[in-house]
């Protein structure tokens, strides 16, 4: 990170759980530098971790030949975290609602829901190959930010 207020950091990582820990640590630095309180920081960091787990596990399937890309930015108005994999792609419309009674006792399927619940904006973009998730946490009141993204808001 280039400074406590604004800056962008990006890197490519192997498809491993160590990379998930790196994403988590970078997200924590980002939120702390931005001055988020403990509860807000927890939610952003957890969302980043869930996105990284999805990329490593469901996207790349731990394939050592596939990387995940991660970037962390404070643009002064928002924190923007992007996580991309090189997998077969994810259709967010096909993700079951984990709050539906028939899904409430399922052992899986809550990661994307938590990401959407904890962030102000979540965008999916299909890559070729792969999926990119952009997670946005507003630092200013909703409506005054100018971060625009590609597809599908929550």
């Amino acid at each position, binding site marked *: 990170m280039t400074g406590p207020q604004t800056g962008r950091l990006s890197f490519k990582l192997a498809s491993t759980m160590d990379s998930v820990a790196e994403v988590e640590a970078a997200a924590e630095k980002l939120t702390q530098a931005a001055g988020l309180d403990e509860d807000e920081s927890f939610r952003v960091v957890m969302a980043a971790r869930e996105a990284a*787990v999805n990329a490593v596990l469901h996207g790349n399937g731990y394939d050592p030949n596939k990387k995940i890309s991660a970037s962390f930015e404070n643009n002064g108005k928002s924190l923007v975290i992007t996580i991309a994999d090189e997998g077969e792609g994810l259709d967010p419309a096909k993700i079951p609602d984990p709050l539906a009674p028939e899904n*409430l006792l399922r052992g899986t399927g809550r990661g994307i829901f938590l990401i959407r*619940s904890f962030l102000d904006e979540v965008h999916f973009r299909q890559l070729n190959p792969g999926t990119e998730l952009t997670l946005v946490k507003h630092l200013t009141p909703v409506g005054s930010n100018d971060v625009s993204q590609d597809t599908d808001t929550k």
Partner: protein
Amino acid sequence: MALSISTRQLDGVTILDLSGRITLGEGSVQLRDAIRDLISKGEKHILLNLGDVNYIDSSGLGELVSAFTTAKNQNADVKLLNLTKKVKDVLQVTKLYTVFDIYDDEAHAISSFK
């Protein structure tokens, strides 16, 4: 910090004191193994003390749900004790707070099994 689990018995209830993180990988697997071990031994009353669990992810939530359903299928009960603010937050968002019996007081939790 990985998950550590210690087990104690009180008034016919098996209490698992959990400390650390319940996340994909080690934490989730440890919890799954511990619950399966207890249920295979015929334990019917299991109380998970989450007072020192400072982090849970979607995989950890899945393990709690699996513990709950596995126990129910064996006519056993898994209940939760002492949720930290972060764990409570995640359980509420996912509506799992409505699924589990949750207690803030150990004596009250133990008496609930009777």
